[in-house]
């Protein structure tokens, strides 16, 4: 009883069932990669290993959540004519902060991710969520939306990273699963084409299992 109460209380700020719907949309029914097929450049580049894929996923969850929340906070005072510049500036601030922190405490990872953390700024998922969602919705719901879309992206990256690391190098998170003496490194999966195949198959499987519903006409 109390549990249900608490859930409904936390969700008042983001209009009840809309909250759950938003999470479902971001993670599954309107997943940025599987359904909208946007922002896949970085998804192809950083998924050769599970570890880099996870860190990149975390980076996107954090930056998407924060920028959606703050954009929604200032949505009513932002002059419409410069809103896109404001969106990009806001995204850049969070991405650069994350990049700096990564360089300070997690140097090896920052070296492996190379320019891709900085390139989150140009990731269309973030811009799309700010422009398409945060500008029309209250802060808390936008925060949930940013988080859900980041999570949707991170999950896909993790799955692709798993498949590529396992098939490509026979290991997971750097631990050898298949002994090196038996398993020959599969370059096809370590290099970019592996990402295309894995991602394509994943998109196919998910869309075949639950076909996207045709959009309702207003």
């Amino acid at each position, binding site marked *: 009883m109390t549990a249900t109460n608490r859930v409904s209380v936390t969700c008042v700020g983001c209009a009840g069932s809309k909250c759950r719907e938003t999470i479902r949309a971001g993670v599954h029914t309107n997943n940025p990669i599987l359904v909208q097929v946007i922002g896949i450049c970085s998804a192809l580049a950083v998924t050769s290993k599970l570890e880099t894929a996870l860190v990149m996923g975390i980076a996107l969850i954090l930056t998407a959540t924060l920028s959606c929340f703050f954009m929604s906070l*200032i949505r009513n005072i932002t002059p419409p004519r410069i809103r896109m510049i404001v969106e990009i500036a806001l995204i850049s601030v969070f991405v650069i902060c994350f990049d700096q922190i990564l360089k300070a405490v997690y140097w090896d990872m920052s070296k492996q991710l190379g320019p891709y953390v900085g390139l989150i700024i140009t990731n269309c998922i973030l811009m799309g969520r700010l422009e398409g969602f945060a500008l029309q919705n209250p802060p808390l719901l936008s925060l949930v939306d940013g988080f859900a879309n980041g999570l949707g992206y991170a999950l896909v990256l993790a799955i692709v990273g798993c498949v590529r690391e396992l098939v490509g190098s026979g290991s997971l998170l750097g631990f050898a699963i298949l002994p090196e003496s038996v398993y020959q490194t599969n370059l096809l999966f370590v290099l970019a084409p592996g990402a295309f195949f894995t991602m394509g198959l994943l998109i196919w499987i998910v869309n075949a299992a639950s076909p996207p519903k045709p959009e309702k006409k207003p």
Partner: protein
Amino acid sequence: MRSDVRTLFFAAAFGTTCALVLTAVSRLAAPYRSANEKAEEMRNYLSALGVPFDEKASAKALIEIFDRNVVVQTNGRLRIYAFVPAGVSQEAMAFAVPLAGMGLWGPIKGVLALEPDLRTIRGLRFYQQEETPGLGGEIGAEWFVRQFKGKKLVSFTGEPGFRLVKKGMPLDENSVDAITGATMTSERVQTILRDVAAKVAEERGRHDRNE
């Protein structure tokens, strides 16, 4: 008119806020970041010189290994890092000189290690570069730098220099394969190497006179 003023005011306030946040974060992270960069540089010097060390050593341990085995001396225009193995001998086993120059998109920094004859290349590492990933960026890759080992910084006529030649052309001990599709980067790397070759030749002259 009023809305223009409002837009300007908003842009100024928003920009200032963003700038303040960025400055604060960058100031806070700076000491840690520069320590990591320093350790990265040392790791490259150690591995180019062939000093044995643990790949996973911490920044502090790297600095300690570096201080124990490497003697830094500045001769004229050139800074030389000599590898004098601790407790083994007084003779330098190898020398390293820093490489620096402009690449295609940004500065390139690296280290070139030489055998004691100051002619033969022992190792080459690039630890800072912003070349095109997949093309010019390959100068950081193992296959590219491995080619340099055992090559000479002087041509067979004794002229200091080095050449990066198109793939498929015959190679001598003074040249290696350039990177296909990265002509600009290859040219710049060649310029950097020639520059260093000239400086090393000067140093070699001084060396020979002293002996």
